[in-house]
């Protein structure tokens, strides 16, 4: 009864807006504070929108292409499934049960198919981004290239961060010999020119045949040499966190080392990791695009970097061919950097508002 009375009296005193504000403040954990700060940051929100747009685009293109391949193999679309060469996948088509089998809904020109007679067309209504030197539709190339370009950035950065976090937390927690060894390894990795090393490795493994093609080699090698920075940041974070009282309290409760490291200390260093990942994805996408630009990508892949490489010499005559892939790489890097900077500001505990 007492609580009901209290509620009534507060309703008396506070107007509805204040009450609603109190309601939103309740349970205001760290993340809702971070979200509120990002919302105030206009450039950060722009970055967030760009990133969300790109992620949606990559997922949509991945799903549509997969669906199209699946339908074609099911025989729903025209073509002979037993003979891939005969498949009629000039366009991305959508066919739903009940539609006439010979007239599916045409969505896009297939990113891998080209019509030589349509080559080098400037942007027009039929081809908003124009066509490339051998007759690919640039919109289709850009749309379906998002999957590879973004996935490479994500996967490359995530594996790097996971390796770096694991090694950094072990070294930071135990210190001593393990830490010394780790630091020396990082110094060795840092003393080598990464980009040239990557090119060397790609050339070395040019003929290797593993699922994922040449980009799998690139991603694996990138994460093998790229974890140093993350490891150092996590390590220094652990150095300050491991002497906190709650670690000792946890030990007094009988928790094992692994539990303390990964369940208790690591969540406390999540903020820098999120910033590393966000800014790192931009850098990784940029690095892979740069590798492709210099001709060390996968010529068979549909990706922005490879398209940029293919048509870089046509910049003056047919500017749309290299321009649109370059523009999308630029927007991706810009979006992730803006979001990363906003996150860095929002996660800074010294800022309070």
């Amino acid at each position, binding site marked *: 009864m007492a609580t009901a009375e209290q509620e009534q009296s507060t309703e008396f005193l506070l107007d509805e807006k204040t009450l609603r504000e109190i309601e939103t403040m309740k*349970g205001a*954990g*760290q993340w809702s504070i971070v979200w509120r700060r990002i919302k105030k940051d206009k450039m950060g929100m722009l970055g967030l929108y760009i990133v969300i747009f790109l992620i949606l685009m990559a997922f949509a293109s991945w799903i549509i292409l997969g669906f199209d391949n699946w339908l074609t193999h099911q025989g729903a679309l025209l073509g002979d499934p037993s003979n891939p060469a005969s498949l009629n996948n000039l366009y991305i088509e959508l066919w739903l049960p009940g539609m006439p089998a010979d007239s599916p809904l045409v969505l896009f020109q297939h990113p891998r198919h080209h019509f030589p007679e349509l080559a080098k067309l400037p942007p027009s209504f039929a081809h908003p981004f124009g066509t490339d030197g051998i007759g690919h539709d640039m919109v289709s190339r850009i749309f379906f290239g998002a999957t590879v370009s973004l996935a490479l950035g994500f996967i490359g950065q995530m594996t790097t961060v996971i390796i770096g976090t694991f090694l950094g937390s072990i070294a930071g927690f135990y*210190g*001593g010999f393990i830490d010394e060894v780790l630091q020396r390894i990082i110094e060795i990795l840092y003393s080598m020119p990464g980009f040239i090393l990557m090119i060397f490795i790609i050339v070395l493994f040019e003929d290797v045949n593993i699922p994922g093609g040449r980009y799998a080699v690139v991603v694996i090698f990138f994460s093998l040499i790229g974890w140093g920075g993350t490891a150092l940041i996590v390590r220094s974070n652990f150095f300050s966190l491991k002497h*906190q*009282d*709650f670690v*000792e*309290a*946890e*030990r*007094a*409760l*009988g*928790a*094992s080392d692994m539990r303390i490291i990964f369940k*208790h200390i690591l*969540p*406390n260093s*999540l903020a820098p990791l999120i910033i590393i990942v966000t800014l790192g994805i931009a850098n990784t996408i940029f690095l892979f695009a740069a590798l492709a630009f210099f001709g060390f990508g996968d010529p068979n892949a549909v990706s922005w970097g490879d398209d940029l490489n293919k048509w870089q010499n046509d910049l003056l005559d047919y500017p749309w061919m290299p321009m649109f892939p370059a523009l999308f790489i630029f927007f991706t890097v810009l979006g992730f950097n803006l979001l990363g900077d906003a996150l860095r500001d929002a996660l800074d505990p010294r800022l309070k508002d």
Partner: protein
Amino acid sequence: MSRPSEDILLEINGLRTYFFTEEGVVKAIESVDLEVYKSETLGLVGESGSGKSVTALSILGIVPDPPGKILSGEVIFHGQDLRKLSDSDMRKIRGNQIAMIFQDPMTSLNPVFTVGDQISEAIMLHQKVTKKEAKEKSIKIMSLVGIPSADERVDNYPFEFSGGMRQRVMIAMSLSCNPELLIADEPSTSLDVTIQAQILELLKATSEEFDMSIILITHDMGVIAEMCDRVAVMYAGFICEIGDIMIIFKSPYHPYTRGLLGAIPRPDAARDDLTIIRGAIPNLINPPSACRFHPRCDYHMLGLCESVVPELVEIEPGHSVRCHLYTDEGKAWMAERGDKRVIGTVPKSIAAEVKK
């Protein structure tokens, strides 16, 4: 007033813990011998840096290593030496049979988890219960330690609690597995006085309810007087006096204990100057030889105190002192010189004995 040895819950013999730092070896604990009886509260009192907290960490085997190392001694709990247990066996005892609460409740809780998560985790570490049962139990313990509307507060983060409430959460966490021994490392030091009283009251009540022994570490003689059955006085890594609270407060034997008690202002006493203990606590990298108190001691026996470590002498059952005033060597030294150092509160019988 001593109790039969089968009532002993925890016994520490000759514990020695050093820290091997770059500046040198910090001899934090030189020799600690004490026993904790079942369902009693033992106070561990001493200046900052006298090794109280390190003793607690040594009992649980969680001295930070490196640089810390327990060099020798045994910690016997329920008849088994905890120092000989494997790491995983020891983890089963920590938090389960021996729990610990820390000085600063502001930093001893993990800031990124709700208090409910943390109490539940403590329960699930030692008991086979589901997450839901653990949470229900957490709520029950939280209301037991006096956290109002525990069923709502269980989902709050530590930063949403005040200092006193956080210390209650810490106590709830340590009580979650019904430990037999609770080590409370200055549980009330960082709280303000009214909250201090509440927390101490809570500790006292729960120790009775759970039939649990407490080692209460503090430098506040008032807290000791309020809470404890027995008290052990530590100085620079040695236990210098241990005994029943009434005996120690009424007639302290060790010069250091006397100094400590003399330094407490009393509202009822005449407005005399408080006695002081000269000097400061020594640097433990290079501590004074033998009896580490000798440079500050009013009863310093030249040639003896700095060369021979005094043994722990049992004055009467359950009351031991580590001081040359009461050892055979000391008595011989005084007899040789016709010295009458034993003065003040020391019972006449002993003073007479020393005189002889």
